[in-house]
């Protein structure tokens, strides 16, 4: 891939040389979009055609990934996709208020998720069902948020997986603080229990002040945090060029820590780059920014209609780069898996989906008292009175008083 310096401003310092170097909008978009030209700018280990390409720098980070492990990654992706599709279907059937699909981002999420060690901490955005899966959060546990029975339903401490954060960018600062805490507690270094934090956010999020402040803090405190930006090309209806002139991984340049772009549809590359980045952080060489270059194959959420703002051509082009398909082809071609395996995974996926479905249909609504509980750890007498009065008011209906 050609250097972005050719189409945007050259490196600073040259002063007047910048004149007339201003890119045309078309050039900006081309630069932001360019992904499959390969080269140093984009780390890719498995091509869309399922071919394993050598990478002298990153191969070492996946040299333990044999046939079994690769089948495992395949299985992960198939299962999370299936759960995702089921979530979507459940919403269509009125079982969920909304669903936020991960379709197309399976590799970006499983690659990152499987790079994490148990002791690492994760701060997701709201689309990280694949990362949740890797943290042992069951797809069922995610339903509550979207069905509206709870805001969040897993134990963030047990899973070391923070609740979903919907306010764009907030979690980047929270994660940075957490990582500072890891460092302050001496958990950064060469011990095997060294820790890191990984925080997920989107391309749109990069514009938020909080994300910037997270970068500033992390740089100043050498916080062991991997900033994992899934650039799925869209922030609802807005393409990346509404947020930046430059490829997003280059944002790191201004802060003095590494930024790297990885093929987000290549699970192996995402695994390798994430492992590298996490290792950097655990050993005290953080932070690191990863831009996983991927695509949101479905709508932003089930409330969204992407045909209003993007062409189906784009979707068709990205289908050819499907994250699951390339692993399947690779497994077949290299003889690492037989049809039987694929059938098994398919079966498992069907099983998972039907369990998820059954679980969803049986989810009880929370009691009205949920409104009042866990607002304060230490209680609040006014609120308790409010609750009591309301419970009493409700009781009035039962007695037919109203």
């Amino acid at each position, binding site marked *: 891939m050609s250097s972005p310096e050719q189409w945007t401003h050259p490196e600073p310092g040259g002063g007047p040389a910048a004149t007339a170097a201003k890119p045309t909008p078309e050039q900006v978009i081309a630069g932001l979009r360019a992904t499959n030209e390969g080269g140093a700018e984009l780390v890719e280990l498995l091509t869309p055609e399922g071919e394993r390409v050598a990478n002298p720098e990153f191969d070492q980070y996946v040299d333990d990934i044999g046939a079994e492990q690769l089948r495992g990654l395949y299985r992960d992706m198939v299962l999370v996709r299936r759960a995702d599709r089921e979530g979507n279907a459940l919403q269509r059937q009125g079982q969920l208020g909304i669903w936020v699909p991960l379709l197309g981002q399976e590799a970006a999420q499983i690659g990152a998720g499987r790079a994490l060690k148990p002791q690492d901490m994760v701060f997701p955005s709201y689309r990280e069902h694949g990362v949740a899966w890797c943290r042992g959060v069951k797809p069922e546990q995610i339903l509550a948020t979207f069905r509206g029975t709870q805001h969040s339903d897993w134990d963030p401490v047990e899973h070391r997986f923070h609740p979903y954060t919907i306010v764009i960018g907030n979690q980047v600062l929270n994660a940075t603080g957490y990582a500072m805490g890891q460092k302050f507690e001496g958990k950064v270094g060469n011990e095997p229990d060294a820790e890191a934090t990984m925080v997920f956010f989107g391309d749109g999020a990069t514009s938020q002040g909080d994300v910037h402040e997270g970068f500033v803090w992390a740089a100043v405190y050498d916080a062991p945090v991997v900033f994992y930006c899934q650039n799925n090309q869209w922030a609802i209806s807005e393409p990346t060029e509404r947020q930046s002139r430059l490829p997003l991984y280059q944002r790191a340049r201004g802060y003095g820590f590494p930024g790297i772009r990885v093929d987000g549809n290549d699970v192996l590359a995402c695994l390798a780059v994430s492992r590298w980045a996490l290792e950097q952080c655990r050993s005290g060489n953080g932070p690191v920014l990863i831009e996983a270059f991927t695509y949101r194959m479905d709508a932003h959420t089930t409330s969204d209609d992407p045909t209003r703002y993007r062409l189906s051509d784009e979707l068709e082009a990205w289908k050819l780069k499907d994250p699951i398909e390339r692993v399947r082809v690779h497994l077949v071609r290299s003889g690492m898996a037989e049809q039987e395996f694929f059938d098994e995974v398919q079966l498992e996926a069907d099983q998972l989906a039907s369990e998820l479905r059954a679980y969803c249909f049986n989810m009880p609504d929370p009691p009205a008292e949920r409104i009042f509980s866990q607002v304060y750890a230490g209680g609040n007498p006014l609120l308790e009175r*409010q609750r009591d009065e309301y419970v009493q008011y409700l009781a009035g209906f039962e007695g037919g008083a109203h």
Partner: protein
Amino acid sequence: MDQRTAVTAASTKLTMGKAINSGLRAAMERDPKVIVMGEDVGKMGGVYRITDGLQKDFGEHRVLDTPLAESGIVGTAVGLAVRGFRPVCEIQFEGFIFPAFDQINSQVAKLHYRTQGMLKVPLVIRVPFGGGVGAVEHHSESPESLFAHLPGIKVVSCSNPVDAYWMIQQAIECDDPVLFFEPKRRYHEKAEVDTEATPYPLFRSRVVREGSTATLAAYGPMVKTCLDAANAATEDGHELEVIDLRTLSPLDLDPVFESVRRTGHLVVVSEAPGEVSIASEIADRVQRECFYSLEAPVLKVTGFDTPYPPSKVEEEYLPDLDRVLDAVDRSLAW
């Protein structure tokens, strides 16, 4: 008299959402300095389609799909306003107005005062707000009280398509910054809108149903709830007066005082948590202005003082007809 019932040549049946859209369009046609900016307001026309078609018709320089950051939206709008534009910012959901709080408090609200009136900041911030739509967190809140506490900005909320159509245009014409709260769960309610009528003034509240038993004061999404409650109350022989506050800052409480002096009973209804809220302020003013007329204390029916709950229990959280009538009963029985 009531614009919502008059049907004339220029009258069309519009949803509230479409009425705001038409109002925006009218304002943009009238004044080339009016621009619309926010996340997804352009090609997509906004997540609620309130800005639908505007970019297509007015171009990308008048309808801006901005980067994703609310402080940026409001902060640049301030600069544009100082330059002579009249920006209409959309905050996608009320729960995302908070990153812009600093710009609203420190610049939007204070620039006019700070410069002894030499600068004006004629911008509008549109905020879809309130619950009842089965949404996830941060999409159902009612933060308007926070803004009503800030001197230097004006805060209004519409409750029906007719007001929506006019108030958005009046807000844009206003030389002061206006926060414009749109009750998102009423976006689909319809009414006849006469685009040639004489609009009711922006900063005035309004009796929308007359009555003598007790007074209900509400705004935005709760006006309909109160009207429904008033209808139901006739069964018990109660005639409830309903006042649509419309302007939350400055409050226009003269019609409320006048009403309370007649009825002796007031219930203020709002979805927002009740503590330190607009409802508290109204109670405070009324107890002072109508001290000798009140036959019972002012009662509030509001959202509870908790974060907005998961949507499966939101119907319990939100004031409804029953809770309003219960409060009326309690007031009458005081």
